[in-house]
């Protein structure tokens, strides 16, 4: 029993450590309810934004950095997962993508084992839409491709992309940035490679990266950069996130957010915790 109690204690110590990092960097906690209208919470973002929308827009100073904690229901695993949901809100656009990744990298830098044991995969819905437009894919088909990718159905997505150039289809495979960029330069010579390179640089100086346009994020509100930090050989993400626009009661919220899953994070850093927590 002692072992079980101690493990629980250490998991909560880890959660407090992460929360303290966010507080120290100017993030504000926002309490959200775990269930609404008969539905279990699967994501904090909607609840955070609904709460914030109850304040007049003129009272909010952007960028607004907030986080919410508590379990979310994961229907894929059929269980509750302890999470911290972090949002950087405001009209910062692509700049907020860099801010969010820098924040994540500061977190990762706390635990050297986490950096060596994880791999970040980056996708980009904005670029995917540009590729589909360049290939003259009709809007209806583009929407079907996105829906298929969101539901994890690469078979249908690839079938719908059969008539596209092989290079465009290769962007749906996970690959190192250099290979991704090489393909991309041929397909979209006008794209903002400087921004992509900056994102890659921010992440790659801490963790291994791969780029994959089949990664579209779990939620339909993502619009541009999406990312997942995976624990190598474990088969679970440590965090998922992306840039989004959400309409809440007529007010458009934009920003970059991510959900940090504490259980896989603990698995990754438990060896190192003894030296970090007194």
């Amino acid at each position, binding site marked *: 029993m002692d072992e079980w109690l101690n493990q629980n204690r250490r998991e909560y110590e880890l959660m407090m450590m992460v929360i303290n990092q966010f507080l120290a960097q100017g993030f504000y906690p926002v309490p959200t309810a775990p269930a609404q209208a008969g539905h279990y919470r699967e994501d904090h973002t909607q609840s955070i934004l609904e709460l914030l929308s109850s304040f007049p827009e003129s009272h909010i100073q952007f960028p607004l950095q907030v986080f919410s904690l508590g379990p979310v229901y*994961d*229907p*894929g*695993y059929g269980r509750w997962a302890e999470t911290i949901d972090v949002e950087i809100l405001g009209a910062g656009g692509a700049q907020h993508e860099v801010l969010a990744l820098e924040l994540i990298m500061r977190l990762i830098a706390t635990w050297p084992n986490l950096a060596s044991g994880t*791999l970040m*995969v980056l996708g980009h819905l904005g670029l995917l839409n540009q590729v589909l437009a360049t290939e003259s894919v009709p809007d209806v088909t583009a929407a079907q491709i996105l829906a298929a990718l969101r*539901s*994890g*159905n*690469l*078979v*249908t997505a690839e079938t719908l992309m059969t008539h596209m150039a092989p290079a465009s289809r290769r962007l749906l*495979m*996970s690959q190192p940035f250099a290979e991704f960029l090489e393909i991309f330069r041929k397909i979209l010579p006008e794209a903002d490679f400087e921004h992509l390179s900056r994102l890659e640089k921010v992440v790659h100086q801490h963790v291994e990266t*791969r780029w*994959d346009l*089949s*990664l579209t994020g*779990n939620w339909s509100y993502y619009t541009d950069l999406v990312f*997942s930090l*995976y*624990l*190598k*050989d*474990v*088969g*679970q*993400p440590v965090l998922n996130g992306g840039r989004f626009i959400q309409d809440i009661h007529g007010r458009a919220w934009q920003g970059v957010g991510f959900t940090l899953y504490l259980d896989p994070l603990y698995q990754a850093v438990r060896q190192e915790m003894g030296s970090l927590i007194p």
Partner: protein
Amino acid sequence: MSFNNVTIAIAKGRILEGAQNLWRKSGLPWPVDNDSRQLWFAPQKERPGMLIARARDIPTLVGMGIADLGIVGLDILEEYPNTHVLQVADLSFAHCRVVLAGQKNQWPEGPTRIATKYQRIAQTYFSVHRHPVEMVPLSGSLELAPVIGLAPYIVDIVDTGNTLRQHHLTEIATILESSARLIANASHWRTKPELAQVRQVLQSE
């Protein structure tokens, strides 16, 4: 290519038989001895590890990362969707259909009972058609339901349709065309390049 770091979960029954053929045509050694009850085969350099399990458990095993890849019917994926699983190839064997069947070739009139082991697929289908139904969950011998008066219609999987005919049932509509699919754990698919190589080997046939 080394398969030391790859495990694949395969559904028992028709999928396993089809996988065996595909495996051998792809030049991979097949580890399963038909007379043995062994269900787990560790990965080796020349072939992936293998787990044999019930079809409906395959998405769970892959989603949890116990297996990197899985082979299972599309019907199971539609009935038990898992957000941690990617569908990465249609392996084009074990073709079958999920159908609506009844004693007459006639669409239900008014609210009706449907006996099925595919509650999600059936519910979605009738929701799309805006038809009120009451589901009767059964796990097998569905074709008995209309005969014994449990439900006038069934939603079940058919291959040749012989079983339906033997019980004097008629196919009214095809709800889903199914075949064996290669699925992958989403994390492993994006972090282990060797999984794409396994797909290539299995699709080369």
